[in-house]
């Protein structure tokens, strides 16, 4: 079966985020970018499905500026077969991303779509669910385990109270949580091979989707910083402070 994986280019996980002095956003100039960590987990899961003989082809799609092709190449180096780049320099919000992915789903007809549960920049946690709704598919969000059986996929989800397993009819959308797997690193030969794998580029207009942002960001600020407090010498002093100064116990 064919698996579609969506990946997003975001600020690297290890980079310290700085708000621009004019409060218009986060400073991304000359900042290291990478594949969103939840998307890496999505790619890894697809590759494992292929290694198990469950998936026959992995198509990876990314939306954004030209540079997103780096993240598509990374996914190809990790084991995806083919890439689709939907190129735009405009801001793409979750609903538009879901509409673009819907048109890719209609063309490619995958049995399974795997996405990260959220991106570490906008932290919206929406696109997978929106795509599932628009395409009329079931969704297994925040997956920590997934097993494909016949025409169903069983997804164990990380929920507030613990774990919950649902069975979804295929085709279905799965969004990954942290403990689904530990992504591998791409080997040098595979990075070289990835350069020769097919990568199609298209625009939102090619897919008949108009980008119309519905949310406007008025300002972005640094969070109120917490002042470091005092060091206490021992447990006795700590308990005394909590009882008599902070009055919380």
């Amino acid at each position, binding site marked *: 079966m064919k698996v579609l994986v969506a990946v997003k280019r975001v600020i690297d996980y290890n980079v310290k985020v700085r708000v621009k002095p004019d409060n218009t956003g986060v400073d991304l100039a000359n900042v290291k970018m990478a594949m969103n960590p939840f998307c890496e987990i999505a790619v890894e899961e697809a590759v494992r499905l292929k290694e198990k003989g469950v998936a026959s082809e992995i198509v990876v799609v990314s939306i954004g500026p030209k540079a997103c092709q780096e993240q598509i190449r990374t996914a190809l180096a990790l084991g995806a077969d083919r890439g689709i780049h939907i190129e735009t320099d405009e801001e793409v919000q979750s*609903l538009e991303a879901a509409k673009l992915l819907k048109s890719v789903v209609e063309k490619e007809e995958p049995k399974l779509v795997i996405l990260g549960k959220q991106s570490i920049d906008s932290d919206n946690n929406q696109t997978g669910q929106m795509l599932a709704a628009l395409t009329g598919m079931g969704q297994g969000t925040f997956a920590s385990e997934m097993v494909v059986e016949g025409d169903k996929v069983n997804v164990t989800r990380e929920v507030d109270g613990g774990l919950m397993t649902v069975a979804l009819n295929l085709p279905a959308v799965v969004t990954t949580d942290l403990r689904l797997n530990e992504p591998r690193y791409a080997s040098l030969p595979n990075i070289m091979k990835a350069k020769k794998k097919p990568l199609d580029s298209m625009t939102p207009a090619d897919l008949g989707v108009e980008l119309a942002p519905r949310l406007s960001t008025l300002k972005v600020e640094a969070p109120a910083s917490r002042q470091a407090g*005092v060091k206490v010498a021992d447990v006795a002093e700590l308990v005394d402070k909590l009882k008599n100064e902070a009055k919380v116990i």
Partner: protein
Amino acid sequence: MSILVIAEHDNSELKQATLNVLAAAKAIGGDIDVLVAGENCGAVGEAAAKAEGVSKVLVADNAVYGHFLGENLGELVAEVGKGYSHILAAAGTIGKDFMPRVAALLGVAQVSDIMRVESEDTFVRPIYAGNAIATVKSTDSIKVITVRPTAFDPVAGEGGSATVETLDIVKDAGLSQFVNEELAKSDRPDLASAGIVVSGGRGMQNGENFKMLEQVADLMGAAVGASRAAVDAGFVPNDMQVGQTGKIVAPQLYIAVGISGAIQHLAGMSDSKVIVAINKDEEAPIFQVADYGLVADLFEAIPELQRAL
């Protein structure tokens, strides 16, 4: 304006998060209705009717909503919600699951995880794991919003007298089935709403050592949490994780034990009123946010703390 708040519950009890979301609804202003969707959830409907500021409670009681499957809830809420200006739910794993479906079915954006209401169309929310705070304005006619419960003081859970109506709408999308669940059973308070939280990190070394924290927590009536490192290492289950991708907590007192203070952990607890850090590494970033820091070996400090309590 008219606001529909989707109740969070477990079919028998209304979760406190609903009262926090009602506070966000109150800040937006307008008539507030509550939708209780579940199975055999009549008691939840009655509890919601007593909450402050609620005009009407709508109860959709059917087996198809029993496990809060996002596909079914999404269709129900999109249908009931289309007559409202705002649809609000708590940003827990249930709300995060079905609300984007509601937004997509209505063809509108969702504003996720708001922590403040600026006006009826402008909201404040964290981005980049809380390293930046964005003010966003929505131009949609229906605003679909998930609310960070800890950012809003709850409205009163008693004293209201809303009318209760039964909704006879059954939406079975037929896309998903509940298989099973493994829910943690604990006599301790719920992590997300506890007044005191004691959390352990990688420094705990193994799951067995978390018993020490549990003993301390029980003496204080506290909940027990963990850092992502401790969960990833398999010391404790995922439902204990505090942090950006786990639970967001804001108790009166947060005690971080053997937690270094990775940014994604801080994003989940830095709104706590008083933070205590116990760590043997003096340079640990957790000390930069702690009101009281104790540089000590936790295996000596925790038993001592237990005796002192």
